[in-house]
């Protein structure tokens, strides 16, 4: 019983604080991104989309890596908590990928003159989006808890291979997209320091939002399981 209540109690206590921290850092990041950070010499103010686009893309990466870790955890231990974490993270990751895609498109129109173009980074990002939509589709089509969790976990392990591919895709020939500016192998970020600071604050804010969503979504998923089991008149399964 203690086993069951401890993490849930902990999660319940920490979630409001996570929410507050996320909201506060988001407010700070917004002010910095919209007012404090300097205007770009070449692009003007459009570049500020970066403060949404880049953190969204990076948090999508993080979310999908978490899906991978949670999937391994499920395959290893068969604890329902891991499956809940995997689905939560996958949904948020799809959301963030979508955000990065939309923000990227909006950014592309004024800078490149088109909404969309056939270019490695863009295409691989779209492919990543489709992959995890497929992941969610697989989950929605299988109804049986254990089987669904195992099938999804296998896919979660396989799909993560695409994250490095998206990241490295800019290095392929004829890339139009920005080359790595911040996360560069060897050498410091090639970015104005005020811009860099703003970007880092945005990334922190997005991370807190991610964590808040995660804690809420995992709780929903677990309580949904409990309700179904309760309605079926069976004893619920062991939670971590």
């Amino acid at each position, binding site marked *: 019983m203690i086993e069951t209540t401890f993490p849930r109690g902990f999660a319940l206590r920490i979630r409001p604080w996570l929410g507050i921290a996320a909201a506060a850092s988001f407010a700070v990041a917004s002010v910095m991104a919209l007012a404090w950070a300097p205007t770009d010499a070449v692009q003007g103010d459009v570049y500020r989309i970066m403060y949404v686009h880049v953190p969204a893309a990076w948090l999508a990466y993080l979310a999908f890596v978490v899906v991978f870790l949670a999937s391994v955890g499920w*395959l290893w231990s068969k604890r329902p908590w891991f499956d809940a974490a995997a689905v939560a993270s996958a949904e948020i990751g799809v959301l963030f990928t979508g955000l990065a895609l939309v923000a990227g498109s909006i950014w592309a129109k004024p800078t490149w003159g088109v909404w969309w173009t056939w270019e490695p980074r863009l295409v*691989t990002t779209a*492919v*990543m989006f*489709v*992959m995890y939509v*497929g992941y969610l*589709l*697989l989950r929605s*089509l*299988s109804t049986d808890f254990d*089987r669904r969790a*195992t*099938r999804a*976990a*296998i*896919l979660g*392990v*396989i*799909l993560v*291979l*695409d994250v490095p*591919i998206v990241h490295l895709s800019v290095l392929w020939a004829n890339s139009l997209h920005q080359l790595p500016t911040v996360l560069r192998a060897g050498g410091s970020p090639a970015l104005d320091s005020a811009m860099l600071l703003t970007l880092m604050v945005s990334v922190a804010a997005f991370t807190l939002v991610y964590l808040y969503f995660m804690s809420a979504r995992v709780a929903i998923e677990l309580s949904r399981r409990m309700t179904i089991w309760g309605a079926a008149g069976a004893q619920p399964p062991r939670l971590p």
Partner: protein
Amino acid sequence: MTGLARVGLVASRELSAERRQPDGAVAAVTFVAVLVLLESLVVGPSRARDATVAAALFWIALAFAAIVVAMRSFDRELDDDALDALVVLPGGRDALFGGKVLALAATLGLVALVGGVLSLVLLDLPLALPVHVVLVVVLGVVALAPVVVVDVVLALRLRARAALVPILALPVLVPQLVSATQGAAAALTGDATAALAWSGILLAFALVYGVVGLTIVPAAIE
């Protein structure tokens, strides 16, 4: 009986059922052939003769053929619940996965042979480095097989599985398809270094998916 012998046994059962009712293989060969033919007919032979276009078409057709063959092979098992009989055998799940991958690779090899020769002859393609072409095709086939089998297993017995498998498999296959296309085009046009580099990437894909598949997938076969 060792694990490997069992894999061989499952693969040979698979292949003899396929030989008896060559649904998958013949469908795949037709598919590739017709795609090549129609393409050159409607698109015009000069465009289709371009090495990259031809290679891309070939690999897209092969990817679909792989999906068709693999789904058909599992459908055949589901016909009279034959799959269950296999799964309850000791070591059955692992042998099933390995055997299906092996049989799929063998069938695809045949399809690729026919489709490749057809493309070469009908589209009158250059063939600068024949050995490299064979290498790329073999490694491409080996890299396709495990991914497709994994995806078919994941969608097994689900409603709408015929829809799910392409949705799941094709995005995952994009990197392999691009590598295989580039590699084949390089080999056709005589760029040995590029052909070998792409072959290396294909080999890496084959190994990664093969190992991942063998370690975690059998548990999902039900």
